[in-house]
């Protein structure tokens, strides 16, 4: 076996269409590059948007012209990566070091099941999704549900009273939002008759689910906001009450990982809302990926707006809202779907329960 045959076999292995397509999917668009760029952009955009809402100007200096401040996150990340990792005396050393590193991995893993657009390929229609499974919405929601357990573990492992309080608050919050998320996602699944995110999007060709299931959209959006811990629901790290909640003790790399995971979660949640209720990549004229990004951006703006507008809820208010308002609303939506299926099945895209 001479060197030429080795090179030829290597070329045959790596320079072919499926492999390059896979590389594009994994590394660039729905894969690694997209959430990374999104995090850099979202942090900057959040600061700029908050400033606009507060009638300020916002960051100006690190970056060109109107994009001032866009490189600030990169500078901050570089600074934090150089910092010393301080492990508190009371901390559980192993968990304290492992769990924050696991957070971005799990968040990015959820990103792998999100289909973004049809892939412009020759032959059968392919989708820009890293890993296709017909149960993608279940997998994504399950991966989302792991995050709060990591939070609880981190809060306990840090061995500080603030982190413990933050973790307990996260546990309470979990009780409030997890059921409405599942119920409102179940509405969409019931109407579509499939757990497949691609089929869910394709079934919205006639009418987006935000118009067909407005209550489910509302419940899903609000409980997703609680799941992300965005401002009206940022009870687990309430800066004015418990320093920074469960993330108080983190320095350097750990802090970078935790914040990165939070913003990747924001990315995944916005993708989910876009796919489930806003028709994903469906739309006229523009290419599908552009439609997806436009809708995605609008959802992100609404997620970020909450921070500049609403005051933080108390934990009992959140539990009240979760159990007394969101869950009944989701159940009402399910009831409406059942009534529609019985008396007006032509409205629904898929006939089910025997029509």
């Amino acid at each position, binding site marked *: 076996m001479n060197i030429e045959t080795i090179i030829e076999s290597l070329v045959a292995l790596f320079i072919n269409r499926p492999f390059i397509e896979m590389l594009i999917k994994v590394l660039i668009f729905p894969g690694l590059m997209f959430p990374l760029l999104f995090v850099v952009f979202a942090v900057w955009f959040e600061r700029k*948007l908050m400033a*606009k*809402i*507060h*009638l*300020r*100007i916002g960051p*100006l200096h690190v970056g060109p012209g109107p994009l001032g401040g866009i490189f600030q996150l990169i500078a901050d990340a570089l600074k934090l990566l150089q910092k010393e990792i301080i492990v508190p005396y009371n901390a559980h050393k192993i968990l304290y070091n492992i769990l924050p590193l696991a957070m971005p991995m799990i968040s990015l893993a959820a990103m792998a099941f999100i289909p973004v657009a049809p892939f412009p390929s020759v032959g059968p229609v392919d989708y820009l999704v890293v890993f296709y499974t017909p149960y993608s919405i279940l997998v994504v929601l399950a991966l989302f549900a792991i995050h709060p357990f990591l939070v609880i573990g981190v809060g306990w492992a840090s061995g500080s009273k603030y982190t413990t309080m933050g973790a307990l608050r996260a546990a309470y919050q979990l009780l409030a939002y997890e059921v409405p998320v599942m119920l409102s996602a179940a509405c969409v699944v019931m109407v579509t008759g499939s757990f497949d995110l691609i089929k869910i999007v394709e079934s919205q060709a006639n009418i987006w689910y935000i118009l067909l299931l407005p209550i489910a959209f509302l419940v899903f959006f609000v409980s997703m906001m609680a799941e992300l811990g965005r401002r009206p629901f940022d009870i687990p790290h309430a800066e004015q009450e418990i320093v920074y909640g469960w993330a108080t003790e983190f320095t350097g790399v750990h802090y970078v990982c935790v914040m990165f995971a939070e913003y990747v979660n924001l990315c995944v949640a916005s993708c989910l809302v876009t796919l489930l209720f806003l028709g994903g990549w469906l739309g006229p004229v523009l290419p599908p990926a552009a439609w997806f990004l436009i809708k995605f951006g609008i959802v992100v703006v609404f997620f970020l*707006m909450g921070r*500049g*507008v*609403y005051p933080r809820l108390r934990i009992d208010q959140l539990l009240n809202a979760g159990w007394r308002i969101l869950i009944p609303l989701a159940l009402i939506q399910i009831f409406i779907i059942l009534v529609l299926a019985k008396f007006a099945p032509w409205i629904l895209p898929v006939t089910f329960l025997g029509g």
Partner: protein
Amino acid sequence: MVFSWIVSILRPLGMAFRHIFKYRFTVKYPYYVLETSERYRGRPVLDLAKCVGCGVCATICPNKAITMVNIENRRYPQFDAGRCCFCGFCAYFCLTSALKMNGGYELSEYDKSNLIYPPEKLVKVPPPPPERKKVVKLKKLSLSTGVTHG
């Protein structure tokens, strides 16, 4: 009750959206400078031709920021910006209107000794803002835009 809930949720959201497109009062200071009003009191500026060296300014100055110094057998005021409280008494009481308070507000220095203005330095009207600075007129900041400071 439900209606009032919905209103209380949507109203701040609408206000935030309106704020995004509103005019901002913030001036990017080193690059843009506000024009001061006519009666704005900055550092005093001396007109050597008008000064008669009477010393009223040094007498009236509450912080003793002005002292009289001799140059070529004539007395002139010397000004210490570090002590000045910008009351404007020196200009008000000046018999010949040789002192005017139109010296601007950019007075900071790296060295404390630079804060003392001998008569020949006090004469100079501060240079107009450099090329990179644009002057924002106060008219643009009038209350007609609908939002007040604070």
